[in-house]
């Protein structure tokens, strides 16, 4: 039997056979010599993590993973996009162990900016990695027993397919597909990009000009460089491929959706003239509303990650300086503990603060999660020039010539459309060429897998440190007059508290409840200091003591005086973000 198995594994990579094999063995355990440590050698759902996926393929992946691991994976649609596509969320947890939606939840989303494709692949990889390693890595098994992941590969499905299948630049289709009048002329989306040479890429336009300030790089013909002061240039740059479609003298000024779905969230929202990209009010878009509603339904979400590109950053809030006051020292310590570890796990990525180190964002998703809902949230800006040659770029993010060199040496010219001549109706004789839409911001294929794993590992670390509550002791003491004193101690063995400091101050979520069942309670109180008997009585419903938070790596104590000496007493800890645990005396 064993021999046959080995033969199967060695010969067959067809998934159906692998599934049969895994089922025969009860669990899929890789042959040690075939397993490259950390990765399944024989996954039930074979995937190529060096390519991108459209919506149909993402849905297929969700279906396949659920089918392969029905007790670990469920997927659902949490709402429809503007054009009516489903927004899928994969729930990953050990469904045979505990009530899943009461476990501390880790939210991961990708692709809110549709041109930033790889957030979806990295989110999918995370779901895949967790399911495929549940039986092989004890840490993952324990993680899925204690926690739940909610993974939304794309929260902007309309624009994802538009980016993939329609003419776009690497920066366009950041937005959604709802048309608006962007220039106030009363017309909607009347001046789009034009794929002049019909090659599926929107690249740059240049024109030979005596007064131009650019020349072609003699080292690399794809690259345009700014000439030195006093030096004569050869070309002027005319922007991205397009024509003036509405006769207002402007090119591409009213493309679809210049709005930004990441300015449509319900914390410190500001209108468009304060925060470019904002719409009518927070929640103008069905996509952001679907996610918001999901969060209000899933108050167990204690950690969140929202993937963007690019630049190699592990970002935390706030998006605007005026919200700094909501980040207490205590909360920052939690962020630092996780973020600094992340910077180590993700070479080339820096752990930084959005408004200080990037730019100001009002009405962003991160702030809504972190400040609106009290959830410890990071946002990773995927892909960095560091990854090209494993060293920090000299010249900064957008000036560096490393992309050109990397293309030449490792991609053999696949990343650029070479310059070619074109007769433009308004500009006359021009040339069209430049970087393809999937270059610079989105990972080249062979770098994608590595970054997927590193980022997935960071979210797993983040998820691992969501609260884990244990009732460490229940002490009873018989008092005079037929009374019993019961003291319960609850310990959170992870870094993240059940309520952020911000949450406690503003009462974002309800307090944690520590309840005694099966006893006739006379009085109940929180114990602030057990050695000096410092306590606070709770008059209202003393059987269920309300605790503002159970901090990371800390314990809380509650005390009851009950009548008689009751048998069959049960202590229940009921925390929205910390989960539900109970223990009988």
């Amino acid at each position, binding site marked *: 039997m064993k021999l046959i198995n080995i033969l199967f594994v060695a010969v067959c990579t067809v998934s159906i056979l692998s599934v049969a094999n895994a089922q025969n063995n009860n669990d899929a355990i890789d042959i040690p010599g075939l397993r490259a440590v950390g990765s399944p050698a024989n996954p039930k759902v074979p995937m190529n993590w060096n390519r991108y996926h459209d919506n149909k393929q993402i849905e297929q992946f969700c279906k396949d993973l659920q089918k392969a691991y029905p007790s670990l994976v469920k997927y659902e649609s949490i709402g429809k996009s503007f054009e009516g596509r489903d927004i899928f969320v994969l729930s990953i947890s050990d469904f045979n162990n505990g009530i899943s939606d009461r476990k501390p939840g880790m939210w991961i989303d990708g692709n809110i900016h549709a041109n930033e494709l790889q957030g979806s692949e990295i989110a999918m990889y995370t779901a895949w990695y967790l399911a495929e390693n549940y039986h092989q890595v004890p840490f993952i098994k324990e993680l899925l027993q204690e926690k739940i992941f909610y993974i939304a590969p794309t929260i902007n499905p309309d624009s994802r397919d538009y980016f993939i299948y329609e003419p776009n630049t690497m920066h366009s289709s950041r937005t959604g597909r709802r048309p*608006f*009048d*962007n*220039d*106030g*002329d*009363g017309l909607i989306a009347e001046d789009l990009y034009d794929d002049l040479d019909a090659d599926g890429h929107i690249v740059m336009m240049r024109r030979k000009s005596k007064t131009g300030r650019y020349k072609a790089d003699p080292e690399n013909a794809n690259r345009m460089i700014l000439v030195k002061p006093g030096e004569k240039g050869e070309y002027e740059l005319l922007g991205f491929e397009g024509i003036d479609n*509405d*006769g*207002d*003298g402007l090119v591409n000024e009213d493309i679809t959706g210049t709005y930004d779905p990441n300015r449509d*969230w*319900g*914390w410190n*929202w*500001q*209108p*468009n*003239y*304060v925060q470019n990209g904002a*719409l*009518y*009010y*927070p*929640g103008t878009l069905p996509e952001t509303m679907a996610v*918001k509603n999901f969060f*209000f339904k899933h108050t167990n979400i204690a950690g969140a990650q929202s993937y963007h590109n690019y630049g190699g950053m592990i970002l935390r809030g706030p998006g605007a300086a005026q919200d700094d006051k909501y980040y207490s020292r205590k909360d920052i310590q939690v962020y630092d503990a996780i973020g600094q570890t992340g910077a180590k796990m993700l070479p080339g990525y820096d752990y930084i603060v959005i408004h200080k180190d990037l730019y100001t964002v009002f009405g962003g998703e991160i702030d*809504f999660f972190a*400040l*609106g809902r009290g959830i410890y949230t990071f946002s990773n800006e995927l892909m960095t020039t560091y990854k090209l040659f494993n060293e920090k770029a000299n010249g900064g993010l957008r000036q560096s010539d490393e992309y050109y060199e990397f293309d030449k040496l490792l991609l053999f010219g696949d990343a650029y459309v070479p310059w070619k001549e074109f007769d433009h109706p308004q500009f006359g004789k021009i040339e069209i060429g430049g970087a393809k839409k999937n270059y610079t911001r989105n990972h080249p294929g062979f770098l994608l897998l590595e970054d997927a794993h590193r980022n997935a590992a960071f979210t797993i670390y983040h998820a691992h440190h969501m609260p884990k509550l244990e009732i460490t002791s229940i002490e009873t003491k018989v008092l005079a007059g037929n009374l019993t004193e019961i003291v319960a101690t609850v310990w959170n063995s992870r870094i993240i508290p059940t309520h952020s400091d911000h949450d406690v101050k*503003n*009462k*974002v*979520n*309800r*307090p944690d409840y520590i309840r005694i069942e099966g006893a006739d309670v006379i009085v109940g109180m929180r114990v602030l200091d057990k050695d000096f008997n410092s306590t606070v009585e709770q*008059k*209202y419903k003393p059987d269920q003591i*309300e605790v503002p938070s159970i901090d990371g790596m800390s314990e809380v104590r509650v005390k009851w005086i009950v009548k008689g000496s009751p048998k069959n007493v049960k202590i229940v800890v009921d925390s929205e973000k910390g989960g539900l645990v109970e223990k009988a005396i």
Partner: protein
Amino acid sequence: MKKIFVLLCSISPLLGFAQLDYPSYKDLLSSIHQLKGNKYVSIGTIGKSFGGENISVVKLERDPNVKPTLLLVSGIDGKHPAGVISSVGLLKELLAMQPDSLAHLLDNKSIWIVPLVNPDAYKRNVEAGHWNSGNARVVDNDRDGRMDENPSMDINGDALISQMRVKSIAGTHVMHPNYKNILIEADRSKGEKGNYVLFDEGIDTDFDDRYGEDGVGGVNLDRNFTFNYPAFYPESGNYAASEPETKALMNFVYENPQISTIVQFGLTNNLSEPERFNEAKANERIVSSWTAKDADVAKYISSIYKKISKPLGEPTKMEHKPGNFANTAYYHLGKYSFSTPIWWPSVVDSVNNTKTTKGDDMFYQWAIQNNIDGAILPWVNVKHPNFPNNEVEVGGIVDIYRLNPPLAYLGQSTKIHADFIQHLLKAMPQLEFQKPEITALGADVFRVELAVTNVGLMPMYPEIADKIKYVSKFKTICELQKDQVFLNGKRLQLYPSLGAGKSQTFSWLIKGKGTVTIIAGCPTSGIVNIDVKL
């Protein structure tokens, strides 16, 4: 009717005190729908409330052609039913005008009215006789994880929620020197000692030392709008524009760019005291002052308002609250936004015939002088579970009466405001072309010069709207015939808002004979067109 009611109450005190004599929700709706018979009236909906009620809009217009429109809204905060009654009343006033005058009024402009933005509140409140602000959403007002666990409570069974005073050496309040049923704060700076603690009528069921802090009442929509939204504030909702009513109203304004000016009957007054220009606040990234030009318009409109509303007496001062509609309508929707509570207590000193009473005293004096049943109650002893050892009495002020008088008192205000709305409508912008100047330069080359003038008394739209992407701007379009080309100038051009009495000149150089059509304007000013023969 009202007199009979008062009489009935006075002979039979067991019936309790009078409630506000406002129509039931059903009667209110049918009185709105009865207006449909008029040829200028059409009724639609702008959306549904959280509780599933339709939010109606009554459109008063001569024909379906889009015209610059004045939008009147009321009933946003459930504690202001007087606004709802008045806007429906105002509609009736307008419809009762001479047919010719009404037709003339609606020649170039339309009036749309959303009388009840928060139908859930009116429906619930008028039934219960207790007036709460919010919609039908169940909210955890005190954010303690429990829903509506501590509602206000009618302890003495008079069917009203009034005040509750507890005699205590730790008191903060004393009796008003002139009105025995009213308590005012003891003035510590003058060595005054309080002898009562004052609460709203209620019980502290959850022992958090607050009385009636978490009852029915939902989200107060006037705290749910986007400008200066107060997060984690009672009744403000989970986030800005979280409520369907808020979204419905904002969408309605965005989707109807012809809405030019918004008037609210609500709990803010920027008509008696106009908006002012504050240079520092106007220049910050988050703008929080009307621009200089817009403040000039506010001053002008306010001067009209003050003149017309003079018979209503000295208005109660009311400032903008965070997250309210009036501010959002200006700063985020880019509309001239005016708000008034339409009625306030006012008395004339009978001896000197001069207005000497100010502030709260005005309300006390008005209620007493007019014998407003149910507004100020005598103190009645009650047993209170939270204060077993103190003397507790229920009585004092029934808050809702401060800005919501019995029906009979609203008639004069409604008439005055109908007059104001007409003045405002007439002040709205209007464009006229001046005579075009055409110069033939030879070889079929023509210079077309043309000016358009805003002959209205208000600019085309507020200056702030030039910053707002989704407000339709002032533009010109010059349509050429097939064989004509521009030598100078563009087919489409955008301009900033044109002030009252101001002109904008345009010029094109066109090669080729034939008639060109030029349009100018924007939805809030109306769009004019002219054919020019070359």
